[in-house]
């Protein structure tokens, strides 16, 4: 059954009160909420490579009406983000209905369908001073020494125009007040924002939470390799604690006491 009819059915059967999908307008795909009141819009329902964080919209809706039944077109990253939102009590899984669109490459499916998979070429200046769009964390660690890594990151961060887009667009950022805006932690009003703390505070929040959707990097006017950064944060959490956010609904190791921690403080070697 094509997706339009599926949505129609969900709405008509009352399984969802609203369905979040996309519609086409002047050649652009934009998110849209389909309800029984605008069934005629369904003819414009489309699915394509464009990605918005529909689950974030769902949290906005649920905030206003907690028992609202919401349907969502869910790409793989949307689905992972939904799991995180369930884990952290931001959405009630009982109220969410998803129509899944598989897109991320996986072991069984090499080719994914996502904007972030499109190859990107890195200009020489960025390559020399910043971080290659196609960098891999391990290779990055190997290629550069401590001080080079630092200066490359500082180059990237110093481009920041403090739009907060990475946070605003992030499907798993849901704090009512963000510590990035705490004037005691990070001096407000400066451009670029205090580096690297601005980005690292966010990076710590992403550790064990980021679902690797890449929307932040898409939204970054300065093209800071945020996805690369957060992926490494998750890698650390995965390596040290064996936790992969979004795969299930377990909480992140940073908030769980009681499990036996076998870690030991690292020795102070020179």
């Amino acid at each position, binding site marked *: 059954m094509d997706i339009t009819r599926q949505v129609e059915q969900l709405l008509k059967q009352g399984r969802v009160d609203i369905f979040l999908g996309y519609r086409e307008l002047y050649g652009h795909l*934009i998110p849209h909420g389909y309800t029984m009141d605008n069934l005629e819009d369904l003819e414009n329902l489309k699915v394509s490579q464009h990605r918005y964080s529909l689950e974030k919209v769902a949290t906005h*809706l649920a905030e206003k009406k907690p028992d609202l039944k919401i349907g969502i077109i869910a790409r793989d990253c949307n689905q992972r983000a939904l799991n995180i939102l369930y884990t952290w009590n931001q959405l009630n899984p009982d109220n969410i209905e998803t129509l899944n669109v598989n897109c991320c490459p996986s072991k069984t499916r090499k080719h994914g369908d996502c904007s972030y998979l499109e190859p990107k070429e890195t200009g020489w200046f960025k390559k020399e001073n910043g971080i290659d769009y196609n960098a891999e964390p391990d290779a990055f660690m190997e290629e550069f020494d401590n001080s080079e890594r630092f200066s490359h990151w500082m180059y990237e961060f110093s481009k920041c125009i403090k739009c907060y887009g990475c946070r605003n667009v992030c499907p798993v950022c849901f704090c009512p007040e963000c510590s990035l805006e705490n004037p005691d932690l990070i001096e407000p009003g400066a451009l670029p924002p205090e580096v690297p703390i601005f980005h690292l505070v966010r990076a710590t929040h992403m550790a064990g939470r980021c679902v690797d959707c890449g929307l932040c990097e898409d939204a970054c006017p300065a093209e800071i390799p945020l996805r690369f950064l957060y992926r490494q944060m998750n890698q650390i959490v995965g390596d040290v604690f064996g936790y992969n956010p979004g795969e299930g609904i377990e909480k992140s190791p940073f908030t769980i006491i009681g499990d036996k921690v076998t870690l030991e403080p690292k020795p102070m070697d020179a």
Partner: protein
Amino acid sequence: MNCKFVPSVCSYCGTGCGVLFEVIDGKINSTLPLKSHPVNQGKLCIKGWNLHEYINSFMRLKAPLVKEEGRFQKATWDEAINHAARNFNRIKEEHGPDSIGVLVSAKVTNEENYLAQKLARAALKTNNVDHCARL
């Protein structure tokens, strides 16, 4: 409950970034960059991301105001417009059309600017039209 996304153009600065307003139940709940827009390509600055906040501000003017004895009173549109028109017509009669100036705006739409200069030139009969582009 309804939810729609309406395309618009950011009203800060001359860049003209494409935005989407997330409208929930008749209220703009947030602003998003329009991913496929030719100007900003799905990115925004801090002002753009918070575009809806001033629109929703509780400090917005909700009705025309007329000053009486130094204090503002809420008025109907007819009262306010007629009061203003009466006074402008009086000034125009007393001091001529060029005794009135019109400052149009770099923040309102083309249509409105067009009408404003038309108002100055056709209704008031003056070319005293300028705006703050230079300020």
